[in-house]
């Protein structure tokens, strides 16, 4: 089985700074990590490979050159091949242009299964995975928490808030993985050395995926971010610690003071 795992480098912080003019994320000076849902997706692929050593795992990311750090991490965890999708024309892409770019690259690479994380902790859209599947015209299952192979099909568990579905899906297909589905393995010492000393990261650009630059990056992005802001933290509430009757009276008077009741 040939698995392509899509991973994204994200800032390791909840305090994301936004470029006030472009409305895009500022990544400089922020510690970066592999997106947790994506890392769980990679672990899922590695477990499938543990069960069936004929499996090959290609990790793919779209981003600037510094994103090679997570590709090397993926190789050190056990992936076979790493590809960086990078080109000036890809910059500023929204989810539509991103998924078109990635889907076009994956079409060239070939696959039986594509695994994407459910969503990235920076953008939180959860759109790229399903959109890749739409571009490739293949079935997809999102919010997956468990995968088994059965011949050329997969049996997956799709999580909802209070129930789950068990779905049989024919490959080639795409799934989006939840970070809660497993505990990703550590990198292996020897593979870290290989990944940093000898590994050539293959890159693909606009020419390789052969898509009109007008459809890529900021130009190909129908989404325009008008304004993004960080929510102000709420003030801490008031805790009333009297006996129940007095507390109820106190709370009623506080709510009345604020014209809530």
């Amino acid at each position, binding site marked *: 089985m040939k698995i392509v795992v899509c991973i994204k480098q994200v800032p390791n912080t909840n305090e994301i700074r936004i470029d006030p003019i472009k409305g895009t994320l500022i990544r400089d000076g922020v510690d970066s990590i592999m997106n947790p849902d994506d890392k769980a997706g990679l672990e899922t692929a590695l477990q499938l490979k543990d069960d069936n050593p004929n499996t090959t795992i290609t990790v793919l990311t779209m981003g600037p050159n510094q994103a090679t750090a997570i590709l090397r*991490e993926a190789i050190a965890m056990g992936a076979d091949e790493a590809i960086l999708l990078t080109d000036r024309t890809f910059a500023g892409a929204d989810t539509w242009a991103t998924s078109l770019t990635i889907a076009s690259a994956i079409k060239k690479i070939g696959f039986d299964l594509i695994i994407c994380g459910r969503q990235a902790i920076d953008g939180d859209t959860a759109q790229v995975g399903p959109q890749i599947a739409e571009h490739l015209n293949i079935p997809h299952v999102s919010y997956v928490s468990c995968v088994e192979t059965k011949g050329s099909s997969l049996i997956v568990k799709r999580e909802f808030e209070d129930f789950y579905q068990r779905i049989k899906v024919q490959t080639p297909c795409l799934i989006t993985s939840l970070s809660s589905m497993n505990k990703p393995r550590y990198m*292996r010492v020897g*593979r870290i*050395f290989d990944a*940093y000393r000898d590994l050539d990261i293959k890159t693909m650009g606009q020419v390789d995926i052969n898509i009109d630059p007008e459809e890529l990056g900021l130009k190909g992005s129908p989404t325009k971010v008008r304004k993004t802001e960080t929510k102000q933290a709420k003030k801490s509430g008031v805790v009333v610690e009297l006996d129940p009757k007095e507390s109820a009276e106190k709370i009623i008077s506080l709510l009345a003071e604020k014209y809530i009741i």
Partner: protein
Amino acid sequence: MDFSFAKEYEVCRSMFREFAENEVKPLAEEVDEEERFPLETVKKMAACGMMGIPIPKEYGGEGADTLTYILAVEELSKVCGTTGVILSAHTSLCAVPILEYGTEEQKQKFLIPLAKGEKLGAFALTEANAGTDAGAQQTIAEDCGDYYLINGSKIFITNAGYADIFIVMAMTDKKAGTRGITAFILEKGMPGFTIGKHEKKMGIRGSSTCELILEDVKVAKENVLGKLGKGFGLAMKTLDGGRIGIAAQALGLAQGSLDETISYTMERKQFGRAISKFQNTQFQIADMHCKTEAARNLVYKAAWKKDRKEAYSLDAAMAKLFASEVAMEVTTKAVQLHGGYGYTREYSVERMMRDAKITEIYEGTSEVQKMVIAGSILR
């Protein structure tokens, strides 16, 4: 001169740190309290290649180097001295000498499973009457033609209760003194080879420190490690390497207790402010930090010289002497800065201070290190 690490070392260090925080730290208190060997951690270390860091890939290892292995011991020891010494004894005292002195057959048979972490290693030199005077071995290996018959006992053997492969020193020629000592590779379960008393210790209480009892143990001639009569030199060279590992353990203990103290003193309030605002605390922490950093430089330099195949015996002795004494001093100050709380088992600095003491004793006491150092400069 370049004090920076290549990226692969930084990534290894951060992986070791994450592993230590997530897998080792949560067990440290229990392992100490219950004197329990953390076998599950050894299996987890094996899964990420930590049991064979400086061993070439062709022998099941990771193909990294001493410096990388030292970073692993340091990071583990920052949170658990027991786990640090398990890795140190396994690697420096068992896997590495088989790599350096073993025949191809011995490497295939013993080194590969050690490096993969399928088997755990130990090293047995010390006897009841042969401590610092390691040449006074009373364990005898009698040549019986096809095999040796070994009789005797060893004490204070790290990892003993859980080890599968042991390097054991024995006298093959009683009259020849240290030139009559030979190293053998023994396996757990050999008839006549049993594990004796488990020591109850002040620190590193999860580490399995036991007596080995050897009663008419038949050992095949192909299990001689290195040359006949060259065991003492092999043991001394092995301990040179081992000392860098123990120095790294000491360094980890010092750094771990310093880290705990920094966060504690920034939180703990007395007289209306954090105790880190008092000049006494600041001066103590400045001293602790400087000494720890100086120890780090000595430890890394010794590892770096070993990796460059330069003579490193003096560097290893200096690193071990200095780092272990810094560990004792820094962990003691850490307890003092924690006040009464630091004396309780609620806070990990109490355990770290107990763990630090052994680093001044095993694999050559501080006094032995001074003998080595003086011996190599007063020539």
